[in-house]
């Protein structure tokens, strides 16, 4: 199969690691070779948390500048920060709901005007998909499922040969029983609302 380099980025606590692990599991069940990289330790404490899913037999666990095929940003500023890892061929998926960093609250920085930059992304990348994943997660019954909503969007775009059922099955086996239902709903909502 084709090689795909998928970059997940977000803020500590948003569940980027779980999303990448679920996708990795689904890929493995689909029979694909896969590598998933994770960030642990100090970097996790409220900072930026990145993970990658490399499909199709790639051995490298990380993605260099301009090399991501798909970027999934769990937070708009983090999407913006990761744009340098994309090329014009990339697909960019982003949550639109901001998590304002402490450095903005302290007045050291200004949060960028995202509407302008969403316009830029729409113009400059092969495909661009933005949606309020937090709102959809709440609708699904758990504000924590932002990661699963975005996973739904990713699968809906059909850029990678992993189908919906395989991910749903993975959610059922990997997520704690009491969270399975809202997570499945979150996945479906992401899947249905993926437009680009």
């Amino acid at each position, binding site marked *: 199969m084709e090689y795909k380099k998928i970059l997940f980025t977000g803020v500590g606590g948003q569940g980027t690691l779980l999303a990448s692990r679920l996708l990795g599991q689904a890929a*493995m069940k689909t029979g694909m070779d896969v590598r998933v990289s994770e*960030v642990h330790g100090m970097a996790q*404490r409220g900072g930026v948390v990145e993970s990658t899913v490399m499909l199709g037999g790639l051995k490298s666990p990380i993605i260099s500048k*301009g090399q991501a095929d798909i970027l999934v940003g769990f937070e708009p500023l983090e999407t913006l920060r990761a744009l340098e890892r994309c090329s014009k061929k990339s697909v960019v998926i982003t949550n639109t709901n901001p998590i304002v960093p402490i450095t903005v609250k302290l007045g050291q920085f200004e949060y*960028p005007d995202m509407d302008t930059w969403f316009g830029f992304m729409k113009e400059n990348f092969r495909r661009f998909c933005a949606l309020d994943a937090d709102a959809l997660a709440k609708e699904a019954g758990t504000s924590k499922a932002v990661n699963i909503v975005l996973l739904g969007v990713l699968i809906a775009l059909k850029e990678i040969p992993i189908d919906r059922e395989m991910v749903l099955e993975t959610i059922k086996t990997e997520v704690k029983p009491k969270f399975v239902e809202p997570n499945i709903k979150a996945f479906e909502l992401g899947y249905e609302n993926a437009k680009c």
Partner: protein
Amino acid sequence: MHPLLSGKSGEKLLLLGNEAIVRGALEAGAAVAAAYPGTPSSEIANNLFFISNEENSPIYFEFSTNEKVAMEVAASAAAAGVRSLTCMKHVGMNVASDVLMTLAYVGVKGGMVIITADDPSMHSSQNEQDNRIYARFSNLPMLEPTSPQEAKDMTIKAFDISEELELPVIIRTTTRTSHVRGPVELGPLPEKVKRVGKFEKNPRRWVPVPAVARIRHKVLLEQAERAQKFAEASDFNIVIGKGEFGIVASGVSACYVEDALMELGLEEKVRFLRLGFPFPYPKRLLSEFLKGIKKVLVVEELEPFLEDEIKVLLKDLGLSMEVYGKGTGDFSRMYEFDPQMVKKAISRFLNVELVEEEMPDLSNLPPLPLRPPTLCTGCPHRETYNAVKEALKEIGEEERVIYPTDIGCYTLGLLPPIQMADYLLCMGSSVGSSAGFSVSTDQKIVSFIGDSTFFHSGISSLANAFHNKHKFCLVVLDNSTTAMTGHQPNPGIEITPPGYDHPRIPIEDVVRGLGIKEVYKINPYKKKSAVETLREALSKDELTVVISEAPCILYYKKFGGKK
């Protein structure tokens, strides 16, 4: 049951490199393991901890108070003929190195594997030392995996080699091999694990007084020579492709090389030696490899470890060829690599054009707000820092104070708005460095140490501080867990993971036991009384210890109220 224990032979699991090492140890029949947690090694210890708590677990595991102790626990178990393992982050090896260097002399009976997880780029560390040098320093064999599958397979092999040579074997990972997941095919678990060994007394081996050590050094060098044989025969050294130019790499760098060759379509046009056995390197294999090429590129993070070996070997072989790598400026001795960096170096080396993807113009991007890691909302450390600041302000010392700090979440007190971390070296350095500041300045000294770090290496320095009459205030941030690395227990904890019935050692008793009289306790959430107590402690012109007790909020959510 824990998935690493219940997984059946032939089953494929998506495992972290660290988890794969644990499974490898179980498949190899390791029966004793001990560790002090440290990123990027922590998941090895965490998984072993949970597995050891299973009913009829095949393995004993303990969180030891530091890496030195952990290595001693594993070493003596192996001396008794039981297979053992210890794991640590790269700087943990410094703590254990006193054991390591002489353990190499006395050796082992049962297989013993030491995992060192290095952290190029310092994602969670204070330096990026290259622990391959410890292999050369101690003369112990070292293996280096490139994938989770290899991490598991190498762990098993390392136990066999260790038993054969009667020497511990080191496995070196880096952040990118410890924290990558990949499919791992499980092998069978042994039907019976040798949990009980027998220590055969032999002072001429196990007690390295000078006369014995002189003999054992000779034995070590002989065994190190024999290790060559294993390096030569190892399936983990692989030569791929053909051509007149060669590339040598190991660890994650080898992954970058493989992807680059594949993406550049050069797999068949260059000879690539993937070294899984970096020490001792397979001399014959490498010699043959070098004889067949005209120039070589060495791809390795951090120190020019293989590069220097290759330069020496070329001289011995009487071969002259250009060695590309750190010496030629193709790679840096700093930080981790990335795939594109390696791809660029390879295209320069092979003189092929690298077609770059067209990137959007990001030159108009404004300066993006930084998102530094911070203490959690509601974290008790934050409250303690504020109370100390307030108390210092009240006694008019806020401007002149020095804050030696230590290793843990609370090191983040470095950042604004707290900014109460002025000096740091390593685990436990808060106490020792306070002593130095107290004799060399007339400034107020307030230092911070966590509960786990206190037990790791704070106690002996505190005994020193009291005995030598140093004057400072040590604030122990006792949050009842080892928070940064994922909530491992330590001897002082009041809230314990379920079923953890180890005797508790209250920090206050330790401090008073040393003879220190000025010992105070505060609850950082009760700000008024905390500030009052701190004001009193900080006003003293002698060594004082303030224990700030409040559990880590994340840990409390996890285990609070459960026993």
